[in-house]
């Protein structure tokens, strides 16, 4: 009797697990196959070939889990082929960070500071990743990253784990989320570990509307 009861209990438990996993799997992301990755890379590259510039609103959300608090900054993001990126913060204060080639310009309270990206390894990594995402060259990034691809019904998630100690000390993982239909970058997440992360949400993208590189000028 006892054995029958145990068997019954085990069957019920197994059925419940199968059913509940199925439900979770529908909502959760799953790994992409090699063929799906190749198709995604080709589509992203094709989009990159016709994207000369992009401008969008962005919201930066710094999550400090240890304090149960988040800090929000907002502004405009601009990208121009091939190596120009600008984060123009508007709130809580005006702060511009412009990357053009190997130079980084910071404008804060009217003061301009220009540095070489080789002196700022973190921004250099970010520039490389953003460019690779826009140009469809994620798989071409050097071997100092481990890249994995996941998807759900609407989105593609690319997880980039830096293996170089200098970068991984500051950033544990970078996640880029793409809209599956349009291949627009929806968000970028920097996981710093230590219960802290920063998410950049990009909205209202406008493609090929920037006609001049004036706003990226360093000197």
């Amino acid at each position, binding site marked *: 009797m006892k054995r029958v009861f145990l068997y019954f209990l085990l069957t019920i438990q197994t059925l419940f697990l199968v059913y509940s996993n199925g439900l979770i799997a529908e909502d959760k992301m799953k790994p992409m196959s090699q063929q799906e990755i190749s198709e995604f890379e080709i589509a992203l590259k094709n989009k990159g070939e016709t994207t000369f510039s992009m401008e969008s609103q962005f919201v930066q959300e710094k999550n400090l889990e240890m*304090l*149960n*608090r988040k*800090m929000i*900054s907002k502004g405009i993001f601009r990208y121009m082929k091939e190596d120009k990126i600008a984060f123009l913060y508007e709130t809580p*204060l005006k702060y511009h960070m412009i990357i053009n080639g190997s130079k980084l310009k910071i404008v*804060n309270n009217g003061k301009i500071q220009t540095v070489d990206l080789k002196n700022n390894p973190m921004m250099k990594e970010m520039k490389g990743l953003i460019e690779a995402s826009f140009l469809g060259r994620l798989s071409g990034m050097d071997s100092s990253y481990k890249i994995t691809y996941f998807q759900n019904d609407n989105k593609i998630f690319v997880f980039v784990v830096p293996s170089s100690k200098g970068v991984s000390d*500051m950033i544990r993982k970078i996640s880029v989320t793409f809209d599956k239909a349009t291949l627009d970058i929806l968000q970028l997440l920097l996981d710093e570990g230590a219960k*802290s992360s920063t998410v950049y949400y990009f909205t209202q993208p406008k493609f090929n509307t920037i006609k001049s590189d004036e706003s990226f000028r360093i000197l």
Partner: protein
Amino acid sequence: MKAFAYFSLIFLLTLSACSTLKDSVRIGKSGRNVVTSVPRVIDTVPDTQIFELQMNFKDDEFSGLLLLKKYDNEHYRFILTSHFGLTVFDMEINKRDYITHYCIQPLNNQRALYLLRNDFSMLLKPDFFPNIRYKIDASSRLTALERAGSITKTVMYFTGYKDSWPSLLSIEHPHLKLYIKLTTLPDASASPI
């Protein structure tokens, strides 16, 4: 050469012993130029506050956002992030001790962190250390303080008062060529996750 080093040390010690604050007062029970207490410069009522931080060290400049969270019993946490969001340091201080939860490698130096802890402690409690000279204006507001010391001499200025609290707090370590400015950001807020 040894004589020059000795002379330099004497000169530095003499220089650091001279107060640069005119008409300053100190805390004491009685006497001339003595006050019994000094006003605070950081509002201790809000749960969290955000400041813009600008730091100049020799020829280098850095700016970011400093989040201050208050706990009970004079226990605080300071987190400095770059504008881009990355954490620079995360430090917890109370009456006696401090804990560094995180610090980026270039700043992860015990003496630098101890100096920051002392600066933050004085901001939160201007009489944290004894023998500090204070400058108090006619409206009984603290406008400056100076803590003598050889290489770590500290001078702080509090200006731009709005609603009883300064909007600009400057920390100067002239011998180290380290200057830190904190500006209150009334529009910035840290909301619950």
